[in-house]
């Protein structure tokens, strides 16, 4: 891709990035940070390409290290974000199942 179209894509992506998270509640700051963190693990694609071109064993070793690191970022990032968000979502179901907290929901409903 030529430089000009690449620049166009980059500038548009900056605006999209600003727009999509412009109004995020502080409750979601942590999961959003973690989710964005997982997304830059996509450097894995670059690491795979570099490792796939490596002819020299030394270069291959460095490239494979990059693959391991990028995979850790990508997989770990999505898993830990999912765990956090699972807790947000599971709240009501869990509250219903757990006896001691039943009254708590009743109280809140009564408000």
């Amino acid at each position: 891709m030529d430089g000009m179209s690449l620049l166009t894509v980059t500038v548009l992506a900056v605006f999209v990035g600003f727009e999509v998270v412009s109004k995020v509640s502080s409750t979601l700051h942590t999961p959003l940070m973690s989710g964005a963190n997982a997304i830059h693990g996509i450097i894995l694609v670059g690491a795979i390409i570099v490792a796939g071109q490596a002819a020299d064993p030394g270069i291959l070793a460095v490239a494979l290290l990059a693959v391991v690191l990028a995979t850790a970022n990508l997989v770990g990032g999505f898993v830990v974000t999912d765990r956090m968000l699972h807790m947000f979502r599971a709240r009501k179901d869990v509250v219903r199942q757990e006896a001691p907290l039943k009254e708590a929901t009743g109280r809140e409903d009564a408000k």
Partner: protein
Amino acid sequence: MTLLDPVWTSLLYLAAAVFFILALRGLSSPRTARRGNLIGAFGALLAVVTVFLSARLDNIPWIIGAIAVGSAVAAPVARRVQMTQMPQLVALFNGVGGGAAALVALLELSHTADPWVRVAIVFTLLVGAVSFAGSGVTFAKLQELMTTRPIVFPGLPVVMAAVLLAAVGTAVAVVLTGSLALAVLLMVLGLAAGVLLVLPVGGADVPIVISLLNAFTGLAVAASGVVLGNVLLVVAGTLVGASGTILTRAMAAAMGRSVAGILFGAFKGGSTAGSTAVSERPVRSSSAEDVAVLLGYAQRVIIVPGYGLAVAQGQHTAAELALALEARGIEVDFAIHPVAGRMPGHMNVLLAEANVPYESLKEMGEINSEFRMADVALVVGANDVVNPAAKTSSGSPIYGMPILEVADARQVIFLKRSMRPGFAGIENELLYEPQTSLLFGDAKDSLAKVLGAVKAL
């Protein structure tokens, strides 16, 4: 192996980029957040499958092995980590991402003679290395492998300036010569700059720096996309860079700080951050029974949970105590500071884990005016977020941070392990006020004792 047609490759990468945009969009609203994250993961999977089907790759068994190793290390850690330790894990994952971007750029150096591509390479090398080393230091601070206080030494600004100048000089030399040795030197300088950047940042501000470094890694990935001519990396990296910048500013605003103030505040000297000495002044300590009497005959109680509660896993006991008090006709709420815990929104995650109903968690803006109607404010394992120094002491590292106004309550009870200052490393004047009493001990034990005493009233 069969190779995908270049048009299909581009379309699949485009689809992955769209999934990433949808993921970030979903993540900024509570109802769609989890789906958003899964959409992002699907986009990443799609992109990885695409690269295997489209690029001419050697060493495929090795690559798959490396992916297996990376997954085998990261997934169990991510699955098992205590939610209280999650901020440092996010820092760690961010760091390795930055490191991966720097290594990719380093290896691409010999493949190009185009000066613009080399500019993108040196950018990736430097920013990736800063992010890697900086994240390492934030990890060490959050894990308390090192002090969480700002570390400044005389001449730090000079050293930092020298490192940056050397880095710029080396970067120019790499662009001109394409020398691999100089590129490695540039990486080393980037690592040094990353360490120097984060050392002077105090404990309470570390999460904001993680967010900033997250944005840095995004930019490094975007630049590596330019190097490899891969639009997906450009789009994904830029998205993270831009959204991370916004997020960093939002987090800093939630603490009443500026990003520049956080990074360079300690440079200005006169930082009072850092007394970990235990003060000799007298405090009023009480017994669980006294606390139970105060709570049991109040009309309005506000519980202020902090990191100490989460560490002690005392959330369930706190919820039970709230129920026991309500059974006596007392109105009880939880007051959540936006940065309670170790990073913005962390307390909500921790309490959600403990099944505290979301509806009884009141945000700071909503609850602050209610403290003056409260008979008792029960502060459980929180310190910095209720410290009036944020309003009164202009030299304090938390100065300007909005706080929960527990001092307005008629009685204030602190459940604390010891007189040791909180994460920001500063004393809390509130502890010495006449309406304050302290109950020392592990938050969960103390809550259980108070709960037992309330039930016995």
